[in-house]
């Protein structure tokens, strides 16, 4: 009976009910988006960092990976030290540089990553093979398009310029042996992968035995935090950053979005709560006579309260389900805006949908719906029967 009465009440004022559900849907969409924004960056960045199985990154002391032009000296000694540790399975050294690909009378600049193909974790091979020889490179589509080349072609590549002699320096002819996708680069960024020693040689004495970054893969059973601490204590020229630390530092830089998400999410919840409270209050005030009659014929106060709560919760839940769909659409739109951040890895998503987020939003809204209806429902059901009948039903 309670469900029938609740349904009848909602259907009686269709326009009002639909509008309230729409209002809740918008509120739910905003809430879902903010929950996704608050958790998405962390989840997205975390999975990006461990995508290739490296749990620790070593950068020059006091810096974050590729945050500056600084490099780590004595790289080969450090790699030996790391491989001597029982908890280390693999070490991938990476040297970053800017190379210039000669293209007609001009040149095209590209980011170069000097890596060791057997242990690298910076790119995925699409076609061809990874570069292993001193005269080989693998390039991404952006670079290949920019210079109009394809697999098998040879490019003239230079490491720098000599303005006094007006020539390129560190020039080499390099053959494109592979087409790759760089995991950590932004969309459209031109880049190539080259064997580490070849890049060090091209860059000259200033880069001999130096790298920008070392990525460390630990055994499955290893404790990441103790390995990180041990490495940092034994190698004084590096800062060791675990995935957790890296996520925290990136989150600190992007904390503004998390705080915005919290504020807007709270406001959405509050507005949804207000909407349902207003609706339930107005609905109860209109039906005081009806409620008094029900109570006069013996329907218990708690049954009436339940009926009203079901109405409020039904509006919230239907609105929330519609809002979930709306939220996913707006999240996609908002994500496309933030994905345009310069230098942001293509794989990073600010709004990452996780089913847990949907359940959290739904749960919050359901609780809100119940709480929003409790006070007006109890107030309406607690009025003196005779007095209310005289004022409302009889008059």
């Amino acid at each position, binding site marked *: 009976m309670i469900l029938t009465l609740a349904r009848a009440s909602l259907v009686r004022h269709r326009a009002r009910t639909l*509008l309230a559900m729409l209002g809740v849907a918008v509120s739910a969409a905003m809430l879902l988006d903010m929950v996704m924004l608050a958790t998405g960056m962390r989840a997205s960045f975390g999975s990006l960092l461990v995508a290739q199985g490296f749990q620790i990154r070593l950068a020059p002391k006091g810096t974050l990976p590729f945050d500056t032009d600084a490099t780590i000296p004595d790289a080969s000694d450090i790699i030996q030290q790391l491989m001597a540790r029982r908890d280390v399975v693999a070490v991938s050294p990476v040297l970053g540089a800017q190379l210039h690909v000669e293209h007609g009378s001009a040149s095209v600049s590209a980011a170069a990553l000097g890596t060791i193909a057997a242990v690298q974790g910076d790119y995925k091979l699409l076609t061809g093979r990874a570069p292993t020889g001193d005269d080989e490179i693998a390039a991404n589509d952006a670079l290949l398009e920019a210079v109009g080349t394809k697999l098998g072609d040879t490019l003239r590549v230079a490491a720098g310029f000599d303005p006094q002699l007006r020539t390129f320096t560190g020039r080499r002819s390099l053959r494109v042996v592979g087409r790759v996708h760089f995991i950590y680069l932004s969309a459209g960024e031109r880049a190539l992968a080259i064997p580490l020693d070849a890049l060090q040689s091209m860059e000259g004495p200033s880069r001999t035995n130096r790298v920008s970054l070392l990525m460390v893969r630990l055994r499955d059973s290893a404790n990441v935090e103790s390995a990180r601490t041990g490495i940092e204590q034994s190698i004084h020229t590096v800062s060791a950053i675990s995935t957790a630390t890296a996520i925290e530092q990136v989150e600190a830089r992007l904390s503004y979005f998390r705080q915005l998400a919290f504020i*807007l999410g709270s406001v959405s919840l509050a507005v949804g709560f207000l*909407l349902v409270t207003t609706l339930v209050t*107005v609905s109860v005030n209109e039906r005081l006579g009806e409620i008094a009659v029900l109570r006069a014929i013996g329907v218990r106060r708690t049954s009436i309260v339940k009926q009203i709560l079901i109405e409020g919760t039904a509006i919230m839940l239907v609105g929330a389900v519609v809002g979930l769909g709306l939220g996913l659409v707006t999240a996609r739109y908002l994500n496309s805006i933030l994905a345009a951040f310069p230098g942001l890895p293509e794989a990073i998503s600010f709004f990452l949908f996780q089913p847990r987020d949907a359940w959290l939003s739904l749960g919050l809204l359901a609780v809100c719906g119940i709480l929003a209806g409790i006070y007006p429902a109890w107030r309406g059901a607690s009025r003196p029967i005779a007095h209310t009948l005289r004022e409302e039903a009889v008059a």
Partner: protein
Amino acid sequence: MTAALLLRGALTFLFAAQSIDSLPPRHPPRSVAIDERLAQDYGIHVGDTIVIAPTPQGKGDTVIVDALVRRTRDPSEVARGAYRIRVHLDELQRLVGYGDRVERFAVGTRGTAGADSALTAIDDAAFGFHAYSSHEIAVESSTTFLVVSRFHRAIGVITIVASAIFLLCIMLLKVDERRRDVAALRLMGISRGTIVRSVVLESALIAVLGSIAGVALGAAVSAFVNWHYQRVYRTPLTFSLVTGQIVVIAVGLSVGLGIFAGLLAAQRLVRRPPLSLFGR
């Protein structure tokens, strides 16, 4: 201070209190200016002697802190925690083994025409570098903030749409709540137009009062946001700004939406026969 070269990350800062190998002190030690935050965090004062070195625990130079430098209102610096120190150019070049090299020149010209011809002349003569106008650099380095602005605008539009729906919903509910009063007025002979106008007037008044409260709340929240983020990021940057134009747009929108919502609700009510409003 002379013009300084900042090689971020190429320089590591070490305290004089540590026992560190340093190069034989130059007589007299040269001066540096350090980041105000660095001074606060490590208890350094003007006049203190410190050692600056290019590598951790490496050889360095003994210098005197001559000044403290506050961060500028540069948005790109906000989230970066790195400290900065300003060093004499030749000293930094020598310390990091950079030789007679710099990362960039800043060139001052006489007027815009001078800037244009200087750009052309430099580009023609240069090999291996490129000249940019300050405007081009500003546009390029503002890309991040353009993205943030677009994001804010999108959130703003979504908020306005959501607010419009909420307002319409609540107006409908409140006006609907008074349908018996409206029915009584209609039966007394009050015209539809009069009723609509009174409801619209009421909703306009609520909208104006709500807008005034909203502007006051917005100004207060804006002040709080600036206070909070300036403290968190230790920057003089203004994060939130309430201007006259923003107030005019916000008030105009909210009053307009309020009047529209009231009009819609009133029209809906007066279209129904008075007796049906009584539930008969």
